[in-house]
């Protein structure tokens, strides 16, 4: 196999890796916020459920969760899982990352001093207004470094898709390496991950700078 064939074969895997990455972020960033707010709900039952969800998700390996989401419908309900591979994969990733993002958001929300809520109340802000206009912008600013960390971890975690035999870049690297008895595919995959993460770092840094509007 020539290097260019190897690259073009792996390019398909790179696209799929990007697909998992983008879909997971698009799903888990907003879902994480909902989870974080539910985690602070005044209803004990809701708080309890969300707590268990976060605890289970963080306490078990993502690889295992992916297997459960994919095979669960068949083994529990005997549903056909034809065509369910990719949806299960994305569902697993989104629910996993939402739990981590939720805790990051919660940390950010709780770091805002209570005095600000009181001041907002005095000024006649409603609860929603207080959160959307005063709290959230500050939270976003504060949590950026933690979010960057998590997003970079996500880029590398996409390789766990091999569990469900989804042909992302790392599965392909393994398979081409086996058929070509060569380490080159791993080198290509390594460069790909690094470049992808470098792009993430770059983008996040720009966002952090843009958020630094009081300096």
């Amino acid at each position, binding site marked *: 196999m020539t290097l260019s064939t190897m690259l073009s074969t792996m390019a398909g895997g790179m696209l799929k890796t990007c697909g998992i990455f983008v879909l997971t972020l698009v799903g888990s960033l907003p879902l994480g916020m909902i989870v974080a707010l539910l985690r602070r709900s005044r209803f004990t039952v809701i708080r309890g459920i969300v707590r268990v969800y976060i605890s289970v998700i963080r306490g078990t390996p993502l690889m295992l969760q992916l297997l459960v989401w994919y095979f669960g419908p068949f083994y529990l309900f005997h549903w056909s899982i034809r065509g369910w591979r990719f949806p299960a994969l994305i569902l697993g990733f989104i629910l996993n990352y939402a739990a981590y993002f939720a805790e990051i958001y919660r940390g950010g929300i709780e770091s805002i001093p209570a005095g600000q809520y009181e001041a907002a109340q005095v000024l006649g802000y409603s609860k929603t207004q207080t959160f959307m206009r005063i709290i959230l*912008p500050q939270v976003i600013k504060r949590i950026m470094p933690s979010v960057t960390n998590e997003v970079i971890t996500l880029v590398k975690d996409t390789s766990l898709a091999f569990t469900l035999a989804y042909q992302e870049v790392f599965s392909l690297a393994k398979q081409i390496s086996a058929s070509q008895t060569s380490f080159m595919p791993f080198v290509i995959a390594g460069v790909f991950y690094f470049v992808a993460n470098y792009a993430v770092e770059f983008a996040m840094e720009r966002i952090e700078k843009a958020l630094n509007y009081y300096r």
Partner: protein
Amino acid sequence: MKRTLACILALSMTAAVFAGCTAIPAAAPAAQPAEAVEETAAASEEAAPAGDEGTFVFKHGFDLDYPPYSYIDDNGQTGGFDVEMAQAVCEYYGWTYEAVPFNWDAKDAELNAGSCDCIWSGFTVNGREDDYLWSMPYSDNTQMIMVKKDSGIASLADLEGKAVGVQTSTSAYDLLNDEEGQAELAKTFGSLEVYETYTIAFNDLKAGAIDAIAIDVTSGNYLMSGETDFAYLDEELGSEQYAIGFRKDDQELCDKVNAALEALVADGTYDAIGQKYPDIYNYLTLGK
């Protein structure tokens, strides 16, 4: 003002993420995803029962890590002896062929859940006789010890105190852990190193990190092609047969595939496909 800012932030975050990652694959030359491997996620229509030829979708489950039975070929396409044979069987009946590459460790879950109809990927019968419904065996396989020619290791007894590598979930691995098999021999090794893939084990052998590899002869031949410094010991570790594994209640499909195999042997297709894979040709058993 602040609300719009928050919106813009959320949007730009997503946009940055998109921009950051779509640019990379575009830079790679002639993006050609391995389409043959692509799972038809959209295909929602249920497979018709096996009696209904023409519309039946034959879902071939295999491991893409197992050259030369099922692997990614030099053109970046799904190929291998087992893949070509499965396609030939589909052609024989007019079935639609669907490739279902899976993670070898999850093969039973995939088969039982119906995401594939068979496990056909250099699949060893021995030791699993009662676990699946088996087709006729179509290939022999022997487990051997591969060493460097200048290592001074000439027999199984010489392996005492040496470091031996093996790939996890392979026949050679099972054999070395089976009390009925070669577990006694394995106890004499200095260490038994278990690898994720033989590619890495082979590299360790080259680098001198281990002294020998226990491996299926067919995979071993594939690894050694183009290399001159390696050889097998004369003594075999064990031998076994490959066949196609079906769900136990799938007698009808099993019978059909068996009938197709017989027909493909008779008309020379089996031999013709086998000749494309010189590393395993001598081990193919049907029609000989």
